[in-house]
């Protein structure tokens, strides 16, 4: 990597960290195509750099999410079981489907989720009646001066999609937060901020686990990766604070836009 190219990588990391931390995504879904198609980085090196950038984004925003009570640990851990089992199943599914078919499937799912998020953007998942029990996987959420309760609904669907996201992310390198956050919000009744916070906690763990093979193979290009991660740190700190001042509805619409964009990209890849 030429030294004069480094500022571009820092900026890419910052932009990814900004949007990723607002929505609880790692940002690999933007960063990998940006690095490979836009900046000519080989796919393996781009994926490794993206994983480190996810770690930077997740670590920087998790502290803020944790202090605000936006991380639902029980829910995150329960979903992690589904995600890892899905990851195993993904290896089996890979022998049935071509990557084109997988991309097409992912594109259709992402587009449907995007439209659903946009349609339901005005609907809130919170209950103002504090006497209602949040249940095992629900919780309480403070927004400004108001305290709300939320309950987890349609959990089997949430687990099924988590398993799917585990399967797909192993195969396409996409799908940690970008599947979980919309499913948790649109189907499972989890407020968007809690969905994002919980996802942030989990994607850090997933990215650390996925990085092992890349490190071993020597796919980590240090100056490039460091530049991207260095940008992602301030970008995500800014993003997570920005998200606090943005309406939940705007966050959902931003998520919907990201999903439609991802659907377009995956649809393109499938053709």
């Amino acid at each position: 990597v030429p030294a004069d190219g480094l500022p571009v990588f820092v900026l890419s990391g910052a932009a990814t960290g900004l949007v990723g931390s607002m929505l609880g995504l790692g940002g690999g879904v933007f960063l990998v195509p940006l690095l490979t198609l836009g900046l000519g980085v080989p796919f393996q090196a781009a994926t490794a750099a993206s994983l480190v950038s996810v770690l930077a984004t997740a670590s920087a925003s998790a502290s803020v999410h944790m202090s605000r009570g936006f991380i639902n640990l029980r829910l995150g851990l329960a979903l992690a079981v589904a995600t890892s089992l899905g990851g195993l199943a993904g290896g089996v599914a890979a022998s049935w489907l071509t990557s084109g078919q997988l991309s097409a499937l992912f594109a259709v799912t992402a587009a449907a989720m995007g439209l659903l998020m946009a349609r339901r953007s005005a609907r809130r998942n919170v209950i103002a009646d504090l006497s209602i029990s949040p249940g095992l996987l629900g919780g309480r959420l403070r927004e400004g001066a108001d305290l709300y309760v939320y309950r987890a609904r349609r959990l089997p669907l949430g687990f099924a999609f988590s398993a799917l996201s585990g399967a797909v992310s192993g195969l396409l390198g996409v799908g940690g937060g970008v599947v979980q956050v919309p499913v948790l919000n649109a189907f499972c009744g989890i407020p968007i901020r809690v969905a994002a916070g919980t996802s942030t906690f989990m994607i850090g763990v997933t990215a650390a686990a996925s990085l092992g093979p890349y490190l071993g193979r020597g796919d980590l290009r240090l100056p490039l990766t460091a530049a991207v991660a260095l940008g992602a740190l301030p970008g995500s700190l800014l993003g997570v604070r920005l998200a606090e001042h943005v309406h939940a509805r705007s966050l959902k619409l931003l998520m919907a836009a990201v999903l439609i964009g991802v659907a377009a990209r995956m649809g393109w890849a499938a053709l």
Partner: protein
Amino acid sequence: VPTARRRSELAFTGGLAASALLLLAGLLSGQEGALRAGTLILVAIPVARLAVVAVHLLRQREWAFAVIALWLLTVLASSVAVALHVRPTATPSGAGARATP
């Protein structure tokens, strides 16, 4: 948030700051060691956070969730084992690196 967890969050924030400084210094000076250390800290923080959560759940006697957290930590440990194990296949000619899809 309990005090122990808040304290560990403070440590993680310090770690992030250290990592950012190391990455910046490494990029400006071209020192690989600083870049490697900065990156390693980034990998270590989510793992450490999960370990803190596991301890917290054990203390709270939330056995089911504690078991999940501990199991995830073993998955992470196996990933480290993979990182150490895969290395020998990467021969100086780069055959190992090419063998990946």
